[in-house]
Structure formats: structure tokens, C-alpha cells
């Protein structure tokens, strides 16, 4: 039997988690390519979290720049790393990765807040800083603005996705999934006229609609990160 290099695990139907079994960049890209061919429909443009738990200290050897490149090249959207060996964190941040909180069932590791290291991601030149859409964002559509804000002048549908490096404004009902600050910008915010979203996330901290207090559903709200917590306030 061939040695397993990576595992793909769906979590909460949106954020696909890529569990690395090896720190070898070459094996990772080959394995990833195969997975993507098998499931191109499902994986195309899906945001992905990379879990380094199994790597332990070999995580130090990971080429984070290359990893990001490979993941993006295959049409995936790199959201962030989690369970990374502490010593490797600075290197990962330098490569532009966001560090995500470990998932709940694990003991909270001592992850330094992203603020200390890399508050605002460096923007490559001549990138789109603002994307304005005057039509509804429909189910199955994904809007991706990796280094800027997204403004939707209409509603977004259930089953749609907004992914912004910066903030997101929706002047209508927000019914789909929305991820702001996908490069790790913890200052990114989400504004909408009617909160009916399936999932909200800022810099990798996410919440599902079920977890949102029911009195905020359907309200005009602003969502921002307060320390590690997503705060939703009416506006």
C-alpha cells in the first residue's frame, strides 16, 4: 500500500481541511493534484485550511511560500494554517499565512495572536482593492477578492460565497457564506443589511448561523473580531 501523504476532510461543508501527513513539498503537491482531479467539481475555489497536527516539529521544514503557491495554483483558496509547531509559526506568518485557532475539541495551544506579528498583510501592487457587484450573488457563485473589499449592492443567496482579503458589505440580505480577512487581516469587518448568513468568518474565526443569537438574525449588523471572538452588533 502506498504511504498516505495527505487527507482531505470536509468540515462544516465549507472549510475543507487538508491534513498534512508529510512535510515534503513535492509529495504534497503530487498528492494534492490527484485529489483535485478526483474532486475538481467540489474543490474548485473552495477555501481550505491546512492542518499541521501530524507534522509535529517536522512542520519546521515546510516551505510555506511554496505551499501557498501550490494550493492556489490548484484553484483552492488558502485560508490559514492550524495546529502548527510553535517554532514554525513565524516562518508561516512571514510567508503570508494566517494562523487559525485550533478546533474546539483540542486543548487550546498557546498561539500568539496574529496582531503581534503581521497586522496588515502586504498588498502586492496593482491588485484589486475593491470589488463592487450590482447584481445578486447566486447560489453556486463565488466572489473572490483576495486583497480587497467586496461590496454587494443586492442580496447574496444561500449557497453562495464571498471571500475577501478585506471587509465585506452587503446592501441586502446576506444569506450565503461570507469570509472576510481571508489573508489573516483581523481588522476586516462584515456589514450587512439583513443577517441570514449560513456562515461568517473573519481571519479564519468562523461561526455558523445556528450559533448566532436568534435576535440578531434578520437584523442589520456589523461583525468584527474582538480578541479571538466574533462580535455581532446591530447597526
Amino acid at each position: 500500500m502506498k504511504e498516505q501523504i495527505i487527507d482531505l476532510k470536509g468540515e462544516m461543508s465549507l472549510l475543507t481541511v487538508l491534513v498534512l501527513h508529510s512535510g515534503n513539498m513535492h509529495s504534497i503537491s503530487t498528492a494534492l493534484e490527484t485529489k483535485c482531479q478526483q474532486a475538481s467539481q467540489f474543490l474548485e475555489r473552495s477555501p481550505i485550511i491546512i492542518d499541521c497536527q501530524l507534522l509535529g516539529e517536522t512542520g519546521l521544514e515546510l516551505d510555506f511560500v511554496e505551499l501557498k503557491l501550490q494550493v492556489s495554483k490548484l484553484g483552492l483558496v488558502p485560508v490559514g494554517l492550524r495546529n502548527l509547531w510553535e517554532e514554525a509559526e513565524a516562518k508561516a506568518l512571514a510567508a503570508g499565512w494566517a494562523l487559525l485557532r485550533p478546533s474546539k475539541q483540542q486543548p487550546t495551544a498557546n498561539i500568539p495572536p496574529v496582531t503581534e506579528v503581521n497586522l496588515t498583510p502586504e498588498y502586492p501592487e496593482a491588485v484589486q482593492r475593491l470589488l463592487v457587484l450590482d447584481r445578486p450573488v447566486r447560489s453556486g457563485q463565488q466572489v473572490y477578492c483576495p486583497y480587497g473589499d467586496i461590496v454587494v449592492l443586492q442580496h447574496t443567496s444561500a449557497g453562495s460565497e464571498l471571500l475577501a482579503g478585506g471587509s465585506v458589505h452587503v446592501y441586502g440580505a446576506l444569506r450565503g457564506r461570507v469570509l472576510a480577512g481571508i489573508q489573516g487581516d483581523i481588522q476586516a469587518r462584515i456589514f450587512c443589511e439583513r443577517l441570514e448568513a449560513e456562515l461568517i468568518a473573519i481571519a479564519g474565526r468562523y461561526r455558523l448561523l445556528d450559533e448566532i443569537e436568534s435576535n440578531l438574525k434578520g437584523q442589520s449588523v456589523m461583525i468584527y473580531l474582538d480578541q479571538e471572538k466574533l462580535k455581532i452588533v446591530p447597526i
Partner: protein
Amino acid sequence: MSRIVVVTSGKGGVGKTTTSAAFATGLALKGYKTAVIDFDVGLRNLDLIMGCERRVVYDFINVISGEANIKQALIKDKRSDNLFILPASQTRDKDALTQDGVEKVLKDLTDDGFDFIVCDSPAGIERGAALAMYFADDAIIVTNPEVSSVRDSDRILGLLQSRTRKAERGENIHEHLLITRYSPARVASGDMLAMEDILEILAVPLIGVIPESVSVLQASNSGVPVILDKESTAGQAYDDFVRRFLGETVPHRFLEVEKKGLFKRLFGG
């Protein structure tokens, strides 16, 4: 120039073919030279509903692959001189449907002076559906009052905005929402989505609401498009829809639960 209209839905069995047949017939009866094309390769259906299944010699795929020309393949409707049907192939592979081929057929029809070309899309979002919508100027989005159908229509609206020639040119397709199989009684009892809810979710201009009616099945079994059944509520609603499409202002009907009068209640009807 012909105006190309796709009748599409995403979800299957919601009434696209019923609508295409009624729509094309209605346009033809109002004096427009109309062709209706069945894009459902392998599941020929439109010819049955139009009642011309026994006159099919050549089909859409034959024309695309050059085995017949468009004039040979078009079937003239027996009720209207303005109406022509281009049936789908029963036997051929879906891959025979190509973008160039579809474009050529549409161009032939345009050159032939057709006012309207109605494209009856298959269900799903695969090749047949993608090609049926690709060249469209207008889209009739057929939706049933249930969540899965509405969701699929939303999906289709997204594709109309991105995977069509108009979209690629930065233009917009005209979108029209047609709600079919609407049953006010089941809406009232909470079994079905209300028209207002559907509009709220989809945010597309409404062009008609066709009530659920047994006459639809009767009509397709006898090969007569239901729009010709002037007695039936569905037939009347389809006629209203065609008139709205042509620019008339026509109020919506059949949205409320019908109150049976004492006479009707006592003696049926």
C-alpha cells in the same frame, strides 16, 4: 434578428417543456414566426406535447451533424402556420450537441426570418442545459413553489449571469420568473412556498404564475399545448404570460384559494 428565449429551471420536471410548448404556441398565435427547439437530447418530449411525434423525420442532431438541413428537419405545426418544431434526437449521444452546431442552427433560423426561437432546456446544469442558455437573449426561469426548485433556479440565474454569450460580452440576459404548478390551497396550508417568498429569495421580475391544473396532463396526453385550452386556468394563465412577455400589462390571476359558491358546492363542478 430573432429573439432567442431559453426556458430553463435547473430542477427537472417543473414544467419547462409544458411551458415551451405553450409559450411557442402563444407567440405563433399572436402572429410571430416562432421556432421551438428541444435541447433534451435522448429524452425527446416536446414533440409529444406538441402532438407531432409521428411526423419526426430528422432532428436537431441531424442538422448539427450535417445529415439534414434545417428546412428538412423543422416540423410545421398543424394548428399554426407560424409555428415550427425542431425535435431532439431520441437515440443520439449528448456529445453530438456542440456549441458551433447550435450556433449554426440558430443562425439558419435567424436568416429564415424567425421572430422568436424558444429553447426548451433539459434539467440540470450540464452540456444540454448550458448550450440551451448560451445564446439566449431572454430566459424564462421556471420554478415550482418548493425550496429545492427555488434553490436550483437561483443557481441557474448565476449561470445565466456568467456562462452565456451575453454575459461574456458584458451584457445582461433578460430574466423572467415563471412560477408553475402553483396551488393557492397548499400555499395557504403551508405546504408550499408563497409567491411572495419566492420573489423575496430570487429577486427576479415575475412574468407569470401558472396554477396547478389537471388540464395540463390532459393536454399533454392529447398532444395539444394547454394554452389552447381556453377553459382551463392553466391555459388562461399561460395566455396572460405570453401577453406580458410581449409587453402588455396584465394583472396576475389564480393566486387566491378559489371559493366555491353554494351552487358549486352542492352540485360539484
